[in-house]
């Protein structure tokens, strides 16, 4: 299995001159193509820091991070931006939709920064992504006119519109009720089944339990990295 994420001795130190915080220490793991992985840990465990690095929004202060065969360390901001645009789809806890912009325009947003997608085909691609999320009838609605679950589905459509290698979800169900949580998780595992690598950062055991592999962090390092074979079927049953 070709690795999508290779983390080698990742370390991240925050140093503002007076206080020095080691948010990540010696983190090592590899995530292969098509995996569904949960990264868990309580607050302060370093999972947000790790997410930032995995999402190419931040750089490790030590160690190596290789995303889909590309070494991220030493890249310029502009190269990182292009990498985020082409290889990663983000799903956030608070959806992060542009409020007074239609669902369709929100989904189009990443393609604005990808010159390889011709302007004329953006609308069509965005519409297809919304359609996959079952939201084609909501395309012209603004986020305020949609339910929380629908908003998160718009956000997922935005994440997958440019066919990323990796979907990075940061507490994707944190702001949702249990029904919407189930539907969002179903969608994410559905995407995973169709071949996309999905990494979910969460502190909810419930959500983590639905992932085949769980990486737990505490105080900046990995304490467990388990594959839960038995959960797969349980997941399937619960979701259906």
């Amino acid at each position, binding site marked *: 299995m070709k690795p999508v994420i290779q983390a080698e001795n990742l370390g991240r130190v925050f140093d503002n001159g007076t206080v020095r915080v080691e948010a990540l220490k010696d983190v090592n793991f590899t995530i292969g193509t098509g995996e569904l992985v949960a990264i868990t840990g309580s607050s302060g465990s370093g999972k947000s820091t790790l997410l*930032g690095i995995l*999402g190419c*929004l*931040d750089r490790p202060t030590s160690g190596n991070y290789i995303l889909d065969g590309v070494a991220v360390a030493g890249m310029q*901001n*502009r190269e990182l*931006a*292009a990498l*985020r*645009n*082409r290889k990663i789809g*983000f799903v*956030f806890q608070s959806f*992060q939709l*542009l409020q*007074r*912009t239609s669902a369709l325009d929100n989904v189009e*947003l*990443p393609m*604005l*920064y*990808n010159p390889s997608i011709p*302007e004329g085909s953006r609308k069509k691609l965005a519409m297809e992504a919304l359609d996959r999320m079952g939201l084609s009838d909501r395309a012209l609605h603004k986020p305020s006119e949609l339910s929380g679950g629908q908003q998160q589905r718009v956000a997922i459509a*935005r994440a997958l519109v440019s066919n990323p290698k990796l979907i990075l979800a940061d507490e994707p169900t944190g702001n949702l009720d249990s029904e919407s949580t189930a539907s969002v998780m179903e969608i994410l595992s559905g995407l995973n089944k169709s071949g996309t690598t999905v990494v979910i950062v969460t502190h909810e055991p419930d959500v983590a339990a639905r992932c085949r592999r769980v990486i737990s962090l505490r105080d900046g390092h990995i304490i467990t990295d388990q594959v839960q074979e038995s959960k797969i079927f349980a997941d399937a049953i619960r979701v259906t």
Partner: protein
Amino acid sequence: MTIKDLVKISTTSLIRNGVRSWLTVLGVIIGVASVIAMQAIGNGSDESIKKEVRSMGVNVIMIFPGTFRMGGVAQSAGSMSVLEVEDAEKIKETVKTVVAVSPIVQSGQQIVYQTNNWRSNVTGIWADYFTIKAYKVSSGRLLTEREANGMSKNCLIGKTVYKKLFPAGSNPIGETIRVGTVPMKIVGVLEAKGSGTFGQDQDDIILAPLKTVQKRLLATTFIQQIQVSAKSEAKMTQAMADIRAYMLSKPNIISSDGEERFSIRSQSELSSMLGSISKVMILLLSSIAAISLLVGGIGIMNIMLVSVTERTREIGLRMALGATDRDVKIQFLAESIMLSVWGGILGIIFGYLISLLAGSILNWPVTVSSSSILLAFTFSAVVGIFFGYYPAKKASELDPIEALRYE
């Protein structure tokens, strides 16, 4: 991101904050409009001064006896005798760069017609004087050369003299008035010239043949001034030099203390002096207007800074989705440029309207020059870039992780 995307994004975001955007644009509108209007009004005043100067005569050169001193009487004893009618004749004969020459003698006289009387200036002239001063009649006719250069008792009166002596609507042509002690017949009424540059009434005037004024009215042979019209504006300097050369050839023209006992002045000196006054005025008005444009620019910067802060999360999101710092910078710069360019366009329109209004109130030939439009527009675009750059740079330097978490 294409230009189309940029325009779309900035337009939507500006329309969303409608009132705020309008107020910001208004600042620029006021700035640009005042630059345009001030320039137009300034140019108009320049134009009207030039017109006035032109009405005073065509390429006029004046020769005075004695040294010419502004604000003080500097005519030494006997200076009157320096200039004679003969000089005017000689200048006309010998100086090739002049087309018209007239000696002038002026005298304040009481003018009486029936029971009305009025004190006015009687000017003794030759027929050339009409050419020099571009005089025309509104009724009757000018003096003929034979009349003006001889001893005729015909005269011309200005509009003011007509109004003071004759009942409105009556025909003064052919009537006889008494000028001082001499009865004279009116042959024409001069076209109105309005008030002069220094506010004097140019229509309070009687023109009569030189000899008549000299002999019958004043009993003298002296003249006070010779006025000359040069062939063309380009020939002015040459004409002045020629006249000077002639004057210096006269005997006793240099006084015992080495001063020349005459002076030569030209209309163009006056016109360039007035021109420079109006240029200073234009400059002053325009800089005040430019300051208001600057204030408009500060308004843009202010609103863009607010906008960047408000949209911190949006910026973070765009960065996470792949926007580079350059993309973000350009997006905000596009907004500020759009504000200032709209302000520029509307400001030009308003400025033009203000200029027309001011022109009709002040009765000036207000001209909105294309260069001032170009200047104002360029300046407003530059203001947009200059004052938009800092907020845009600030936006582009945000850290995406922190920006996404911003509440």
